[in-house]
């Protein structure tokens, strides 16, 4: 016991500060731990500047070096006290500085994301201005998207429907939004060729959006009289119920062309294999990396990851949309460059990877 007091007069570096980048109502305490295996932990006390007594507000374990007090009020000044707890007794009472919490207006830990968004937007504006001036931007061939026209044409010739599956994601999935953009283009072709279209949805909001997209596409082509309410269907939110319903549609209605574009999970192969077995031409696309091998195996064409997002620009060939692809590629190139530079610096024992950290 005496040895304990000889080595330690107080707990070192006990500091209280407002937790950074938060909405207030939190004080962050930190200290240097005591290297004594016999202690139980640290008792934390708090007292507002107007009170005279410290109240116990928490306990931190033996190996802890910090504590967050989430029970404070903003704009009130507090003082903290920490003490080492050893069995039932408290030792080494140490007082902190005066501190008060307040909400912040900007999250400094996300400044790198903000910088990246601004830079990306600037790229977008630059390439858009270039295309408006008449610059011709190159897009590499994407076989899966080139085959869309052929796939829709095949369905028309065979007099069979086109099946479009936007995947198992709600409208907050970016790939569902990309899928809706592709659906718009496919629905236009379907309206032109007057081929029946079946769009099957898993979430009601996606169903509502898909219905509007298809209806607008038919209206845009002057074929609203050919649009049927039956074209866009709501099925179920259950994952395998959805897969079973789609398999049923594939087997009963035997579509000539199947599109599986959006987020897919374990049900991907169930649907793609069934489509393969009935001999439909199949074009799939997903950003779910683990499902890509299944689609590559069972479908005729597969859009890999970013190609799903590029499809709208590729199909419409609209210069402004193509400019966005160029901005995307430039951003990707810059990211790769940063990764290579940081890797080389890491070999030279200079670690700057924290600039990529997002809080």
């Amino acid at each position, binding site marked *: 016991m005496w040895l304990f007091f000889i080595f330690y007069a107080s707990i070192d570096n006990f500091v209280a500060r407002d937790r950074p980048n938060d909405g207030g109502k939190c004080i962050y305490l930190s200290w240097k731990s005591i290297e004594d295996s016999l202690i139980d932990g640290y008792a934390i006390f708090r007292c507002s500047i107007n009170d005279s007594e410290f109240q116990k507000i928490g306990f931190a374990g033996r190996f802890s070096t910090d504590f967050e007090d989430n029970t404070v009020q903003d704009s009130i000044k507090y003082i903290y006290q920490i003490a080492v707890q050893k069995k039932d007794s408290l030792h080494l009472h140490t007082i902190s500085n005066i501190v008060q919490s307040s909400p912040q207006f900007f999250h400094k830990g996300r400044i790198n994301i903000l910088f990246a*968004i601004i830079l990306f937007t600037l790229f977008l504006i630059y390439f858009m201005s270039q295309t408006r001036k008449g610059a011709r931007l190159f897009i590499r061939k994407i076989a899966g998207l080139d085959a869309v026209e052929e796939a829709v044409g095949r369905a028309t010739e065979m007099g069979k429907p086109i099946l479009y599956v936007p995947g198992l994601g709600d409208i907050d999935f970016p790939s569902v939004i990309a899928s809706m953009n592709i659906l718009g283009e496919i629905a236009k072709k379907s309206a032109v060729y007057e081929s029946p279209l079946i769009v099957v949805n898993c979430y009601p909001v996606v169903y509502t959006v898909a219905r509007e997209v298809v209806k607008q596409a038919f209206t845009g082509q002057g074929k609203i009289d050919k649009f049927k309410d039956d074209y866009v269907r709501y099925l179920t939110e259950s994952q395998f119920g959805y897969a079973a319903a789609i398999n049923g549609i594939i087997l009963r209605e035997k579509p000539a062309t199947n599109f599986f574009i959006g987020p897919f999970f374990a049900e991907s192969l*169930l649907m793609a294999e069934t489509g393969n077995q009935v001999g439909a031409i199949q074009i799939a696309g997903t950003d779910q990396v683990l499902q890509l091998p299944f689609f590559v195996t069972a479908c005729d064409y597969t859009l890999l990851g970013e190609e799903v997002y590029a499809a709208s620009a590729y199909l419409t060939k609209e210069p402004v949309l193509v400019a966005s692809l160029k901005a995307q590629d430039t951003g990707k190139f810059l990211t790769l460059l940063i990764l290579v530079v940081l890797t080389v610096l890491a070999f030279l024992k200079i670690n700057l990877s924290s600039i990529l950290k997002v809080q």
Partner: protein
Amino acid sequence: MKKKIPLILCLIIGVSMVCQYFIPHPVSTQFNSTINKWVVVLSAFALVLGIGNLTSHHITIIKRKKSDWIYSLVTLISMLGMAVTGLFFGIDEKSLYQKIFLNILTPLGATMFALLAYYMTSAAYRAFRARSLEAGLLLGAAFVVMIGFMPIGHFIHPYFPNFAEWLMRIPNMASQRGILLGVAFGAVATALKIILGIERSWLGGKD
């Protein structure tokens, strides 16, 4: 005007939500939670439309006595049955609703999932027919990984499991990350295009 209003709303809400991500102030988090509540309310309205669509689709099939109309009848009876059971007899742990859910719906879902094994076999058979260089590479990699992760792999050669592990950890992971990087940029680009009104396919195009 019919297209301008959704575009303006999209711009305002989109920019607000982007700003919200960078502002930790309680006003900002309150705004986020309010918007999320709105999303739930809108989803509830959309659900009514969805159920309406499902019901009218199947009623039409039954009325016209199309082929396999009996399945439509089963769908409607099941949907109505579950709704009535849940609404009038509760959904607590011992309720009839939970019994139907756990003893019928869950095993049916599991059955569909189990079928995946058979679909995988037929897909793998087609993929592993070494007709081209790519298919040959796929077959080779799959063979190494499968054998490497089985106990027999170690008996064939002690380095076999390590090589399989290396294939998964280095070339496989590198290509996955490459795809993910593209996906991330694609998602950001799509979001920006929609917020800024550049992408209008979801509104039926620019016309």
